[in-house]
Structures are given as structure tokens and as C-alpha cells.
């Protein structure tokens, strides 16, 4: 599947901003299953310095500095990307989750590919006893890791309510867990915390998902949203498997990966510091458009 992506973030400031320094993680990852045909980030006002690198987990980071007085900052990320995912291994054929845990602990590399990066608590996905206990219900003794993880994902989808008003980006995991509600970020963090509590490696993925309009209605431009899900490590052979607890889906060609990390803090699309004292307002518009094969 080929997509045209358009992700526009606009900040409006009450007081003029003299200087902005920020780091953007908006460019989709290039991998075996995802090919970036073309990508670019456009920023106004124009930065005086701009620098692109890959971070530890292989995500593309663009850092920039703006020195011009401005009241509006607009960041537009455009990409054309081809997604073709290999099917996930048969869940019942993956190793027992206890073996997965043991193998992760015995990892012999510090590189980004080591599952050991994803077994310890992180700032936004701390260990939380109730989340671990919740996950443990799916992880019965000897159960294949992916089968158990899929079960956990489905239970989260069933037991938790999707509610954009319920949480903020700063809402702690424990609160989202207790109120059994939130958005994709919260579900991903809760699932990660539960898995890690059991010693099963789990990573956070940010990206997009194609939304299919209700039958008979046109696709609305800019109405798509950025999305987040989980990757679970299922042993050295099966590797990482993407699970989307918000939609109870094994990750497929409708998902587009942008960045991978331990939690949201590692992949946050825009981190920055502005020099200003006034209030700021942010507006985001995302458009994920499947490209007709004829147009490619």
C-alpha cells in the first residue's frame, strides 16, 4: 500500500517568540517493511540552523533553531511511503513467554536491537503493580508469548473506554489505568507497563493509521490523527510483533511507523524550548491518503 502523508502542526503564541529550539520526530522510519519514497519537513519561519540525525533507536530527528521574532510556528511534514508488512508469526507457535523473558535477560548486545532496552520501567511507562497483575491474567504458565500478548491487547480493547477527554499527555499511567479510559497513548503505555512488569520486552511505536470512512461517506481531509501502539518481543526468531490495543489489531499495512522508543517521551513528535512568556495554542492536522496505484 502506498500513502501520501501530510502532518501539519501550528503553534500560535500570545506574545511574540524571540527564539525557538526544537527537535522533530516526524519522518517515517525506513525499514524492511516500510519504504520512504520521499519525505520532507517544511518550517516557517525559516530556521537559521537545521540538522538531521538518527537517534539511538534509529528514528530520524531534525533539530532546528529559529531566531526570527514570530507569533506563529508551522511545521509541515510530507511523505510518500510504501508499506508492505510480512505476516506475523502464528501466535501459538511462538515460544513460551517465560523463555522469551529469559532470552531477553541474556541478551548480548547494547545496540538498539537488544530486547533488554525494553524490560525496565521508563519514565512514562513505570512499573505499576495493578497493571502487571492485569497483564498476568493473560500470561498463564507456558503460554506462547504472542498468543498471550494478543489476548492482553484484546482485553484492553474490551475493558478500556476510548475517551479523548479523559486524559492529557501528562496524565500518569496509574490514573488512566484506574479510570479504565484514555487514548491510544494511554493504552500503549498500560500494555507496555503490564508486559514489562512480567519481564516481557515491550516498545512504544508512534505513527499513523489509515481511517476508512463509513460506507457511502467521503474521506475527510486532515481529519486523520497520529496514532500509537506497542511492539512485543517474542524471542530471537519471531522478533518484534506490532500490536495495536486501541483497535485490537495486529499491526498491518494500515499502520505507518514513524518512531520507536521505550515510551512516548522517546518518540515525541515535537520537543522544544521557546523563549517567550505568553500562552501558546497548538493545532494539529493529519492526513493519511492512500494513493491510487495509477497515480504512482
Amino acid at each position, binding site marked *: 500500500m502506498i500513502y501520501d502523508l501530510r502532518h501539519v502542526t501550528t*503553534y500560535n503564541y500570545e506574545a511574540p517568540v524571540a527564539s525557538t529550539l526544537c527537535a522533530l520526530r516526524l519522518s517515517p522510519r525506513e525499514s524492511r517493511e516500510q519504504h520512504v519514497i520521499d519525505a520532507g519537513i517544511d518550517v516557517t519561519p525559516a530556521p537559521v540552523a537545521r540538522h538531521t540525525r538518527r537517534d539511538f533507536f534509529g528514528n530520524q530527528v531534525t533539530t532546528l533553531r529559529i531566531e526570527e521574532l514570530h507569533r506563529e510556528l508551522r511545521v509541515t511534514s510530507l511523505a510518500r511511503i510504501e508499506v508492505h508488512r510480512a505476516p506475523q508469526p502464528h501466535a501459538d507457535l511462538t515460544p513460551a513467554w517465560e523463555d522469551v523473558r529469559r532470552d531477553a535477560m541474556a541478551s548480548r548486545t547494547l545496540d538498539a536491537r537488544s530486547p533488554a532496552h525494553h*524490560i*525496565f520501567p521508563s519514565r512514562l511507562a513505570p*512499573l505499576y503493580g495493578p497493571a502487571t497483575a492485569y497483564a498476568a491474567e493473560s500470561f498463564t504458565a507456558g503460554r506462547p508469548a504472542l498468543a498471550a500478548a494478543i489476548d492482553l491487547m484484546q482485553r484492553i480493547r474490551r475493558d478500556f473506554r476510548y475517551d479523548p477527554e479523559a486524559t492529557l499527555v501528562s496524565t500518569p499511567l496509574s490514573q488512566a489505568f484506574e479510570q479504565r479510559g484514555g487514548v491510544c497513548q494511554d493504552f500503549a503505555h498500560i500494555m507496555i507497563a503490564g508486559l514489562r512488569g512480567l519481564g516481557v520486552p515491550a516498545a512504544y511505536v508512534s505513527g499513523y493509521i489509515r481511517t476508512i470512512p463509513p460506507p457511502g461517506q467521503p474521506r475527510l481531509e486532515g481529519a486523520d490523527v497520529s496514532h500509537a501502539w506497542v511492539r512485543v518481543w517474542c524471542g530471537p526468531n519471531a522478533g518484534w510483533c506490532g500490536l495495536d490495543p486501541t483497535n485490537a489489531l495486529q499491526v498491518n499495512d494500515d499502520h505507518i511507523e514513524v518512531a520507536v522508543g521505550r515510551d512516548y517521551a522517546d518518540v515525541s513528535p515535537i520537543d522544544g524550548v521557546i523563549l517567550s*512568556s505568553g500562552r501558546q495554542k497548538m493545532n494539529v492536522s493529519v492526513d493519511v491518503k492512500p494513493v491510487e496505484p495509477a497515480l504512482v
Partner: protein
Amino acid sequence: MNEDLKLNLRQQDRKGRNAAVARQIESWLETYRRLDNAPDEFIGADGVARAHWVRYFVAMARYSQRELAQRFANVDRHIRESGMSYRVYGETSERAWPLSRLPLLIEGAEWRQIEAGVIQRAELWERTLADIYGEGRIVAEGVVPAAAILGSDDFLRPLHHVSPAGGRWLRFYAADIGRGPDGRWWVLGDRAQAPSGAGYALENRLVFTRAFANLYRDLNIERLASFFREFRAGLAAAADRSEPRICLMTPGPYSQTYFEQAYLARYLGFLLVEGDDLVVRDGRTHVRTIAGLKRADALWRRVDSEWLDPLELIASSHLGVPGLIESIRAGQTVVANMPGAGLIESRALLGYLPAIADRLIGDELKLPHIATWWCGDPRAAADVLANFDNMALAGAFQDGPPGVEERRPVELAALPPERRAALREQVRQRGMDYVGQEVVRLSTMPVWQDGALSPRPFVLRVFVARTPDGWRVMPGGFCRISDRPDARALSMGEGVTSADVWIMADRPVDMTTLLPSGDNIRIVRQLGNLPSRAADNLFWFGRYMERCEATLRLIRAYCARTAEPGSAGANAAGVRARLQRLLIPRHAGEDGERAIADVAAHALHDPKLPASGLALARAARHAASIIRERLSHDIWRILGELETQLAAAHAPTEAETMDRCEDALQLLAALSGLVQENFNRVAGWSFLDMGRRVERGVSTAALARLFAERDATADNLELLLDLIDSQITYRSRYIAGVALAPVRDMALLDPYNPRSVAFQVARIAEHLATLPTLRQDGLMEQPLRIATSLQADIAVAEAAKLDAQKIAAFETTLSTLAIAIEERYFLQGKNAVSAEPMKGLG
């Protein structure tokens, strides 16, 4: 009781020298009992006192009891006056430093073994860090599992595959050690994040040397000074300029060891900076100074790694510098220790250390450490679970996991069975978060308590620095003594005292190293460029000091107007009401009918009143605390005294409040004198003085507007002269008594009256003219432009033609000038807010 010692003391006795003291010491020793199950520094396992302690006590016996008491009193006074303090986490006020009467003594021969052991360890950790952040051989070869490293928050992913500027991960390392039951010294823990204690050790030494200089010489005690100088030289050599600017980066005045940080910065000649003071431009780190951005070549950081850069690490951090990590990655900033070095503090690594040593330095460890099993390894976990009740359990990494939240290990035997069972389950579930450690009883040392000597457990922190000639160990250390006799060896926490540590050299101590030779030191009269933050706080220190003084004068005048005969007159009541409004702004439910004594007491003492004498003294002290490294002990002491005085309970009468005002004004006068006479006349003083001048100018103009209005009574004019302290000058100049025009002239226009607005503006203009400029074109900068124009305006004004509007204009222009000074010289980044994080809405 040791026979040698007894003999020695008896000899002293026979000589008739301080026989009483000798007997005194003997009696202390008679009552000193080492603990049953722990070794002791002073008394050996055979019950015999160790020779070096005997030497110490005999040397002490030369002092008479009175002399000893006096010298210890000096020690206490010095600690109090120098403001030596620490902060317990979560508390807002600092605590005075507890220093033990007795030092910890270590013999030279034994010390050299410790030295060799910690140097080996420093080098081993250096290579371990280089390997972990580099090739990762120890992991690939199976010496250490990746998970034993990655559990640390201090494995800084952004620094993977980075080589540090200057080539070193570690430049300042510390090991906590204690003597184990076998008589050997054991390492209890490693410190590499930002080891604290070296400054306190130095201050401990300074305080003791003042009181007992002879002892240090006679007992041949090793000196500390050269250690610090060589550390500084090592840092300087790593930078790529001949006279590098080195900064000590502090988390700020609220950090637990701010006193030490300020002290070390002053001692080493480093700039004390907070994150806000630094800025990264074009990959290099700079300090914001009043002369613009100046290159910072090296940082000695006391900010924990994760908080160093909001752009790459914790985004909400206000302690860091955006872009700092990028600059470190680019090899442009030398940092001691490199961010990420803190991961070696993980206990998880201890169990693997012998194997790492074998792999990386091909040697055995010279100093043993507490036996440690990381429960992430299934076999180690099984061992720990099998011996669970005889073990201590601790977090494998920095933060304690459930059950062992404290930093120190928990002895399992001491826990109630249900807690122990819960921990056992935790270890089974997530063993990777825990280590088991053997329980070791460490040695005790004597402390002086309630007129007797008693044994107390202690931990010694030893410091190792990277110098141009390799590793060097501070000959001494930071000794912390537990306050409880039954404290288990490992449980050192709050409630500790510290002790000076004496290495009794068996070789001559090199005295010449205390002062560098005169040849290679360049004479410097102006100390670099003043950081903007320091300028800011000096300015406000000046303003608050002046504002406090003005308030005290108002209160004094208010009290005096009630005490005078005839004060019941209508005019007097009017003046009083006006003063009262100045002192206590009207608020809901309050009218002018408060008791006079009550108003005065509130104005002086009420901490909740933002403009009370006390609140202003506190504000001044707070501003001063941020620039403590630039202020003398005397200034600091008087500030403390001023606050203590003003924090007293309310006085019952206005007469007494007035007396207190007088006392406080005297302290302020002493403070002004110190600032005037003892403050180095470089840029820092200019800002302090400008702060005072701006404040005095504004307040004089405001008072003139209020009390020297067109139809002002003689009373009001007299009051104004009182408030601006110009009575005497006025009387010496005008015999005829008070009149509007001369009073206005004296308050506003007279360039020779040091209290007039004209005088303040002229001084400010002078200061501004000498400060560095940012532009090269010779045009005036905004503050000087405003000051010059105001000065001209005042120069041509005539007292007789002044009106309220004109006086108000002086006042406003001065405020504008203050703002212009702030904008030009102080932190531009003060109002920085972090960009709103983007909300993922999936």
C-alpha cells in the same frame, strides 16, 4: 587499656605538663568499650590501642582542658559564621554542618594500599565506560549481560558510540569504603554521577586547621590543597585553550549540597553557573555574561545526567541546557564526569566486576567489595533466594524498586516475616531490579559524646581525580559517622556527622605544594566576564537591601511621630495615616484605626507582608544566596543576623519596635560599609551599587512626591528630610528652617547630596559607562542613553518650577532605566517556557 598509652600519659604526668588532661584522657580511655561484634579503629582486636591513635591522644594532651574547650568553641563558631550548611531533601531551610570533635586517623602505609585500590578501580571504571559506550566487548563476550547495564537510567542512549572531548569518561570518582571484619578495607559503593563531599572535606580541614594548626604539623598530616589544584589542571589540560573558562554547573540554591558547590567554585576559581546561564551556539557551549556570550570550555557538573538537556533527555527539565548533548556529541565541550558515567553506580555491576577487571585490565581487584549477586541472573537469584534471610537486599540500579525504596540496602533478617515474603515474591517476579548483598559489619571509630568517647560506625568516601599526571587520590576524605551505636554497617543515611580524615604520613609532607610558585601565575585584576545571572542577583541584592533600609526608616518615622508631644494634632494624625498606608497597604476589612504599636510591629516583622522589614531582609538574603560564592563570610554573617533579628516576636510597644529598627539599621549600615569597602570594584560591584542607586532614586522621588507637594506643611518637609536621611545636610546648608524649594532641591536635584535623585542617577551613569558594550560602533546602549538623558533633565531643572508631574516623571524614568538594565544585562532566557508537547490523539 593500652599499656603504652598509659605509660606515655604517665610520662607527661611526671613532667607536670597538663597532668590533669593526661588523667582526663586516661579516664576517657578507661570507659571506651569497642562493640562486641565489630572491629574498631582505635582499639585492636587484642584490646590494645593502636599506635597512631596513641600518638594523637598524646599530642592532644598538650592542651589544657580550658584551651581545648576554647579551640572547639572556635571550630563551632567558624562553622556557624561561614554558613557551612547542607539541606535535607525536601526541606527549604539549610542545616548547620555537624562536625565531629575527633578526626578519623589512617596510617600512611595502610593509606597507600587504599590509594592503589581506588586508583585501580577508577581506571577500571574508565575502561568499562569506554567499552560500554563504545565497542561493547564485555557484553558481546558474555562477561556482563546487557540487561545488567541497561537497567540504569544513566545508560544515556544519546551518547552511545560517542567519544568524550578530552578522551575521558571519568575525571572525578569517589568510592565509599569501610573496614570489614577481616581488617581489610572494603568498597561499599561507587560514585561517578556527581560525587559530593570533597568540598565539605576541604572545609572540615580548614576549620580544624585553624584551631589545631600545630597538631597537623607535629603529626605529619598530609595536605589536601595540591589534590584540588591538580584536578583543576587536569580539567584545564583537557580543554583546547590555554586559559580555559571552567564552569561548575549547579542545579541551583535548592540542591542539597549547594553550599559545597559554591564553596568549591570559589576555591577552584570556577564560574558557578546554572543551566540558564549556559547556551549552545554552533555546537559550542557558552556562558551568558554581561559582555555577551563567552565560550565555556569545560563543565564540572553537579546536575544529574538525565536533567542536562531538555531537548534530548527529560523534556521538562529546567536545570539543563538545550543542545548540550549535541555539543558533547560533537566533542566540543569537556564535561566532568561525562553524562552517563553514573551507570557505574549500579550495584548490578558489582558481581561482574572481578570478571570485567580480568578482561579489561588483566588484573585482580586490589580492594574487595561487598559480595553482591544480581538477581537478573537466574543462578544468582537462586542463590539469593536460598540464603534470603541472611542477606541484605537493595535496588540493582539507582532507584529502589518496590520494597527497597531507600538508597541503602535492607537487611532482610530485620524485617517482619510478611514483608520478607513479599520481597521474596518480588525477586522471583522481577529479579533484574534487585541485588542480594552479604551483610558485613564494619568498623567503628571513637566520637566525643556527652563527655565521653563512644564507638560509632562510619563510612569513608575517598576521592580520585584525573590530573595531567594520571590519577591522584585526595589524601584524606569525607567521613560520615552514624549517630546510632547499633547502626548496622551499611545503613548510613540521615542523622550523620562528618569528621576530618587525617592521613598520618610516614614520609615528609610536602609543604611547598601549598602555594604555586610565583613564576607561572599571570597577574589578573579583572576576573573574567560577569555571568548575567550573577549580575541579576547582585542588582536585586542591592535593591532589596536598599528597600529594606527605606522601610526601616519609614517605620522609625512612624513610631517617632506617635511618641512626640503634640502628636495628637490633626496634621500629625494625617501624616501618620499616610505613613501607615505606605507601610501596610489597605486591605479588606482593615481601616486606619489599627493600634499604632500593632501597625509598626507588623510592618517590621510580618513575613506575609511583602514589603515588611523581615520579608525584604529575606529577599535580600535569597538573592545573596544565589551568588554566595561572590560574597565574603562577613556579609553573609550580617545578613543572617539581620534576618534573625527581624524574625523576632512582635514588640509590645512602638518604642521597642523603634529600638529594633535602630538595631537593624545599624546592621544595614555595617553591610553597606562592607560592600563599599571590601567588595572588589569590578563589574559585580557595579551591579550591586546600581541596584541600590535605582532603588534609592525611585523611593526618594516617590517620597518627595508624597511629602513635598505644592502645599506641604513644615512637618511633612521635616519628615521627608528624616526619611531620606538628609536632616543634617539640610541644616548645615540652610539656617532659616524648612521651605519647599530648598527641600525639593536637596531631595531631587542637588548633585552633592548622596541621598538625592540627581546623585543616584549620576552614579548609575558612571557605572554604565564602564561596563562592557555589545556593539562596536561606539553608539550608546539603551540603559546609558536613558541615564544620560535623565541626568541632563535633572541638571537643568529648577526646584522652584518643579511640579508633581515632573517629579513623577523622574520616578517613572528611573523605573524604565531599571527595566532597560535588566533587559540588556540579565538572562534573556529567564522567561523561557517549554513548547507544549504534542498530544497524540489516536
